C-alpha cells in the first residue's frame, strides 16, 4: 500500500450546537510529515474541529480521513494512527501519573513490558519524575498537560493532534516538548497543534490554517499564510481586531 499524501483530510465538516453553528463546513488537508498549526480566536471552532477529527465528537456532516481511512466509518482502523491531547477535559484523576500512562498504553494494545519501558522513558523525557507516584488529582495544570502528552505518545502514533499543548507548561518543559515534537516530525510523523501563541506557531510549524467563525479563512505553508508581514498581523487582518477598543481609564492608578 502506498503512503497517502495526507495524514488527515477533513471534508465539509459541520457541527451545530442548538442554534449555534460551531463549524460551518471545514475542508483541510494536513500532509504527512508536516508540523501543522491551527489558529483562531476564541470560539472560532478549533477545538470542535479537532474533536471531530479525532473521534471525540460526531460531526453533523462531512468526513474525516486518517491516512486514507474514514475515521467515522472505520474507527478501529483509524484510531491507532492517532495520538490525542484534548484541551480542558478531565482525565482519570485517581490514578498516579505512571498508572495513567500505563493505562493509555494498555488500551492501545501494548505488551506490559513495552508499556513499562515507554512509561519510564516518557516520565524522564517530560520531567515527570515527581508525578509518577502522585495522583493526577494533585497535579498542577502543567503537569496534567505533560502527562496527557505522554498518554498521547505512548503507542508511537503516526499523527499527533494536540489542543493547546504548551498551555500552562513551564519554559523548561516547553523546550523538552518542542524537541520531542520536532524530532517526531523529522522522523516522518505529523503534528497538528492548536494554539493562540503566534510566536510559538511561527517557530514550530511549517504549515498553518487560520480558522474563524467555523470556517477556514486561509491555509498553506507558513510563508504563504503570513506573506510579507508576521503571522500575528495576518491573523488580525483575517479575524478582525477588537471592535470596541475602549480605554479603561479607571484602571490606571496614576
Amino acid at each position, binding site marked *: 500500500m502506498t503512503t497517502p499524501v495526507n495524514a488527515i483530510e477533513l471534508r465539509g465538516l459541520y457541527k451545530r450546537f442548538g442554534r449555534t453553528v460551531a463549524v460551518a463546513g471545514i475542508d483541510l488537508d494536513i500532509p504527512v510529515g508536516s508540523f501543522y498549526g491551527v489558529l483562531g480566536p476564541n470560539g472560532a471552532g478549533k477545538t470542535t474541529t479537532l474533536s471531530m477529527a479525532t473521534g471525540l465528537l460526531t460531526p453533523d456532516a462531512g468526513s474525516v480521513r486518517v491516512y486514507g481511512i474514514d475515521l467515522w466509518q472505520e474507527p478501529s482502523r483509524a484510531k*491507532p494512527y492517532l495520538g490525542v491531547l484534548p484541551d480542558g477535559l478531565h482525565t482519570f484523576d485517581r490514578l498516579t501519573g505512571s498508572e495513567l500512562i500505563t493505562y493509555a498504553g494498555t*488500551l492501545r494494545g501494548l505488551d506490559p513490558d513495552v508499556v513499562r519501558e515507554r512509561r519510564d522513558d516518557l516520565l524522564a523525557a517530560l520531567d515527570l519524575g515527581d508525578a509518577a*507516584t502522585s495522583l493526577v488529582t494533585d497535579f498542577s495544570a502543567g503537569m496534567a498537560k505533560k502527562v496527557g502528552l505522554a498518554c498521547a505518545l505512548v503507542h508511537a502514533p503516526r499523527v499527533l493532534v494536540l489542543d493547546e499543548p504548551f498551555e500552562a507548561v513551564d519554559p523548561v518543559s516547553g523546550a523538552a516538548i518542542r524537541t520531542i515534537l520536532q524530532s517526531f516530525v523529522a522522523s516522518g510523523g505529523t503534528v497538528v497543534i492548536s494554539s493562540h501563541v503566534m510566536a510559538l506557531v511561527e517557530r514550530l510549524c511549517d504549515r498553518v490554517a487560520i480558522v474563524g467563525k467555523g470556517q477556514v479563512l486561509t491555509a498553506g505553508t507558513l510563508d504563504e499564510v503570513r506573506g510579507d508581514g508576521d503571522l500575528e498581523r495576518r491573523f488580525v487582518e483575517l479575524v478582525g481586531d477588537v471592535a470596541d477598543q475602549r480605554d479603561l481609564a479607571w484602571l490606571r492608578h496614576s
Partner: protein
Amino acid sequence: MVATLLRLRWRILYHQFRRDWWRLLFVIAGAIWSLSVVPGLAIGSARLAAESAAVRSDAMLTLGALFALAWIVVPLLATGVDDTLDPARFAPWGIEARRIMPGLAVAAFTTVPAIFFVAVAAVMGSVWRTDSVEVLLTGLAGALLTAASWVFSARLAALWGGRLIVSRSGRATVIGTVVALFGGIVAGAVAVRRDGLESFIDYELASVLKGLGLTPLGAGFTAPRSLFEGDTVGAVWRLALTAGWAVLLFFAWRSAVAYTLVHPIMRGSGSHRRDDAILNAVSAPDFTGKSRTPRSRMIAAVRQRTLRSWRADPRYLAQLVAALLLPTVGGGMAIVVAGGAGVWITVLPIALALGVGWGRHNDLAYDSSAVWLDIVSGVSGRDLMAGRLLATLQWAGPAVLLACIAAVGSAGRWDVFAPVTATALGVLAAGLGVSSVTAVALPYRVPAPGESPFGADAGSIGASLIGQAVSSLGTGVVVPLVAAPLLAAFMWGGGWWVLSVVVSIVLGVAVAILGVRAAGSLFEARAGKLIAAVS
C-alpha cells in the same frame, strides 16, 4: 448583600428553567404535592390537638426526630439538592464568609423543601392551640426554631460530608458512624426480641423519647408541655437550648463556609503510590493461571482503574456507603418492628444486590469527560463495559455474600443459604447487566471529578428521571425472573430449591453478558456523543 444573593439565586434559577424548562415542572410538581398534603396535616393536627399533652408532646417529638434525621441524611445521600448558592462558587471573588452568610441563610429558607417543612413545623407547633396563648406561642417558637436547625444542619452536613469522605480518616469516621447506627438498630432488635414490641414501645422507646426531649433535637417540641404542666423554667431553658442549637449550627455552617472559600475540595490527599497497580494487574496471570491476552489485559486495566475510583473517589464512595447503608438500616428497622428476624430477612441481601445493580444505571457519567481516553484509544466497547462491571462485582459480590451469611444466620435458616445466595448474586449480575446498557444509552450529568459528591446534579433533572425510569423498568422486568424460582421454593419447596439456584445463576450471568455486549456496541456507536452527554 442579602438582596444581592437572593437576586443572584433567582437569576440562576431563571436561566436554569429557561434552558431546561422541564426543571420548572418538577419544582411545580413538588410545590403541588406539598400543598396537597396540607389538608392531611390540618386533619392530623386537629385530631392531635384533642389528645392529652403527653400524647401531643410524644408525637411531636417522634416526628421531629425523624425530620431531623431526614434533613441530615437526604442532602448527603441524594444529589439534585439545590446548589445555586454553593459556597465554593464564591471563592474566586474573595468575599468573606460573614458577608455572604446572611444571604445564604435567608436563601436556604426559600427552597421548596425548606418552605414546606417550616410550614409543617408551624402546624406541629399549633397542636397546642387548645391551650393558653402562652403555651401555643411556646409551641410555635419551639417548632420554628427546631425547623431552623433542620435547615442549617442540612447545609452543614453537605459541606462536612463532602470534606469527610475525601480523607482516609474521614472515611473511617463515616464507616464508624454507619457501624454505630447499625449497632443501635441491632440493640433495638435485641430488646424487641427479648421483651416484645409492646414493652419496647412502653419502656425503651419511651426512655429514648424522654432523653430526646432533653436534647436540642427535641427540646423545642417538649417546651410547651413543660409550660402546660406549670414548669415555666423548664419551658424557658428548653426554648433557649433549641435557639442556642440553631445559632450554634449557623455558626458551624459559617465556619464550614469560611473553610470552603479557601480550601477547594478538588485536591486529593497528597498521597503517593509507588506501585503501578494497572501494570501489576495487566502483568498478573488471569484467573485460570495463564498469561493474559491483549484483550484480557484491556479488561484488567479498566477493572483496576475503576476499582481505584471505588476506593479513592469520594463520589463513588458516597454511592458505596449509600448502597450498603440503606438496605442495612431498612432491614434493621424491619427486625425491630417485626420483633425479630424471620426467614423474610433473606430478602435483605437481595435488596442490597438490587440496589447496587440498579445504582450503576449512570455508571459511565461518573467518569465524566475522562472517557475521552477510552474513546480515542479505540478500545472495544465490550471490553470497556466488562472491565467496569467486573470492578463493581469485585466489591459488591463479597458484600452481598456477607449479607447472605448475616441474613440466613440471623434467621437460623442455613438450609436456604445456597438458593438465597445464588439468587442475590444472580440479581446483582442481572442488575449490573441492565445498568450497563442504560449507563451508555441514557447518561445524565453528575458532579464532576473533584466536585463534592453531595453537590447538586449539574445536569437536567429530566434526563436523570428518564434514565432512572428506564433502568427501573429494565430491572423490574429482569429481576423478578431471576428471583421468582426462590419465591416458588419458599412456597412449594421440593425441586424449586435446586431450580432457584440454577435459574438465578444462569439468568444472572446471561443478562450480565448480554448487557455488556449491548452496552459495548452502544458505546462504540455513541462514542462521539458521550462526552457531550456526561460533561
